[in-house]
C-alpha cells in the first residue's frame, strides 16, 4: 500500500489548522493570583488560502500559540491538527510543509536581497534567468525597489523579516507562520506584506501572522483572532470583527464638546458620548444599525454648530480598543 506523504496530503486538505479547546503548558502568575495557563480553551479553524492575523493583549500568548500551531512547542490539552493531520502533544518538529518565520536571522548577511532570494529558490525547476527576472520585478512591484539589491547585512530586522516572508511565498511550503509579533512595520513594509499575502493566497498558500498592530491586520489579513488573557475573544473575518467591535459612529469636534455631549446624552440615551478634550466620540451599543441622520438632527436641535463631524469608517484599531474595553468592563 502506498504511504501518503505529508507533502502529498497537503494538496488535498481544506482545514490548514484546526484547534479545539487548546491549553498551553506555560503559565502566567500575576501578583497574589493563582497561576493560569497562557492559553486556555483556544479554538480556531484556518482554511486554505486565508491570511490570519493573530492578535492579543500579550505578545507571549501570540508567540506560544503560533509555535504550537507550527508544531514546535508541545501543548497540554485539547485538539490540534495541522493540514488535517493530528499533532502529537509532545512533538517538537518543524514539518517540511510549514514555513516558520521566527527570527530575521534566516537570511544570509553575505548576500544581497536578490541573491538571497535566488539562493533560497534554487531548487525551483524554472529557468534561472526567468526566475531571477520574476523575483526582481516582484520585489519592485511590491514596493521593495529600494532594497531589492541592497546587502542583507544593512537591512533592518523588519525588512529582513519581510524578505523571508517573500521567500515563503516562493517556497514549496503550503503554510507559512510569521511569528514576530514584537515587530512593528512601517507603511511601505505593511504594503509589501499585503501584496505578498495576496500572492500567497492566489497560490493557495495559507499565512498566519502574529501581530499586535491593528493597521497590519487591516491591510494584510482576511481573518483575525483576538486573545485576551489566554482566551480567544474573537475569531473570524476582519470585516465581521470591525462590524462587531468597532462601535464608534462618528467624532464631533467642538469647543464646547462637554456641553454638547451632556445635551446629546439626554436626547439619545441609546448612544454613548465620551469627551476627550474638544472631541466627542459617539458610540452605538444598541443592536440597531447606526442612525447617523438621527444624530445630525439631534445636534441641530441642541443649537450647537460643531466645527467638524467625521464619520468613522470601521477600523480594526477601534475594534481592538473596544474589545479590550469590553473585556476590562466584564472583568
Amino acid at each position: 500500500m502506498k504511504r501518503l506523504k505529508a507533502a502529498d496530503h497537503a494538496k488535498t486538505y481544506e482545514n490548514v489548522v484546526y484547534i479545539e479547546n487548546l491549553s498551553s503548558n506555560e503559565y502566567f502568575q500575576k501578583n497574589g493570583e493563582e497561576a493560569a495557563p497562557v492559553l486556555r480553551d483556544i479554538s480556531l479553524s484556518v482554511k486554505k488560502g486565508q491570511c490570519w492575523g493573530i492578535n492579543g493583549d500579550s505578545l507571549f500568548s501570540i508567540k506560544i500559540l503560533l509555535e504550537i500551531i507550527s508544531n514546535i512547542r508541545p501543548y497540554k490539552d485539547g485538539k490540534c491538527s495541522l493540514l488535517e493531520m493530528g499533532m502529537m502533544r509532545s512533538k517538537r518538529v518543524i514539518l517540511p510543509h510549514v514555513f516558520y518565520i521566527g527570527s530575521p536571522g534566516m537570511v544570509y548577511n553575505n548576500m544581497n536581497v536578490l541573491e538571497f532570494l535566488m539562493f533560497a529558490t534554487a531548487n525551483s525547476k524554472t529557468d534561472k534567468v526567468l526566475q531571477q527576472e520574476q523575483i526582481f520585478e516582484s520585489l519592485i512591484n511590491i514596493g521593495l525597489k529600494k532594497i531589492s539589491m541592497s546587502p542583507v547585512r544593512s537591512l533592518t530586522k523588519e525588512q529582513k523579516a519581510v524578505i523571508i516572508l517573500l521567500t515563503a511565498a516562493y517556497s514549496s511550503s503550503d503554510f507559512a507562520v510569521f511569528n514576530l509579533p514584537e515587530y512593528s512595520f512601517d507603511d511601505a513594509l505593511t504594503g509589501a506584506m499585503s501584496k505578498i499575502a495576496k500572492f500567497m493566497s492566489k497560490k493557495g498558500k495559507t499565512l498566519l501572522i502574529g501581530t499586535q498592530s491593528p493597521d497590519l491586520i487591516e491591510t494584510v489579513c482576511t481573518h483575525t483572532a483576538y486573545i485576551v488573557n489566554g482566551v480567544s475573544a474573537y475569531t473570524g473575518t476582519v470585516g465581521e470583527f470591525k462590524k462587531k467591535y468597532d462601535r464608534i459612529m462618528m467624532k464631533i469636534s467642538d469647543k464646547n464638546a462637554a456641553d454638547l455631549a451632556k445635551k446629546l446624552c439626554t436626547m439619545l440615551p441609546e448612544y454613548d458620548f465620551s469627551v476627550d478634550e474638544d472631541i466627542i466620540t459617539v458610540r452605538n451599543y444598541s443592536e440597531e444599525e447606526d442612525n447617523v441622520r438621527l444624530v445630525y438632527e439631534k445636534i441641530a436641535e441642541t443649537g450647537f454648530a460643531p466645527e467638524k463631524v467625521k464619520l468613522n469608517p470601521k477600523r480594526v484599531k477601534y475594534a481592538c480598543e473596544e474589545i479590550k474595553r469590553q473585556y476590562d468592563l466584564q472583568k
Partner: protein
Amino acid sequence: MRKVEYTTDEQIEQMREELRQAKLKKGMHIDMHHVLVIVRKTVSMVLFLAVVAALTTTLVFIQLAKSKGQTPDILGYQLYVIQSGSMSPTLKVGAVIISHIPDDKSDLKVDDIVTFKTESGATVTHRIIETVKSADGKIRYRTKGDNPVNSADQELLDPDRVIAEFIAKVPLT
C-alpha cells in the same frame, strides 16, 4: 545602528539590462539546442524503425521460403550454409555465404564462385576454373572445389543450372 544601503535606480536599470541580455543569449541557445535535440531524436527513431523493419521483413521472407522448401531470397540475395569441405580452406564447413542471382548467367568469369544444381539435383558451391565454348557456341563452365584434394568436377556446368554467384562470407561463421 547600521544604515540601510538602498538600491539606486542605476543599479536597477543595470540589472534589468543584464537580465535582458541573458534572456537574449539564453533564448538563442535554447532554440539551437532544441532543434538539435529534435533532429537527433528523429534520426534515431528513423534508424531504429528501419532496422526493426528490415529484421522483421527478413524473418518473414525466410520463414515463407522455408515453408515452401525454397532458398530464402531477399531482394535477389540469398544465404547458404556450406555443408561439405570441398571449398576448404576458402569456405569451411558451417560457413554462411551471401550470394546473389547474376544478371547474366552466361557471362560469369574464371575464379567466380557459384552455387549451382548438379544434374543429380544436389546444390553445390564451387569455383569456376575454366570457361568452355562448345561447338554449338554455347558457354559452359568447368568448376572445382578449392580443397586441394579435389579434382575438377566431371560435369561441365550449364549456365541454366547456376543458382547464385558468391558475394561474401558472413564473418565469424
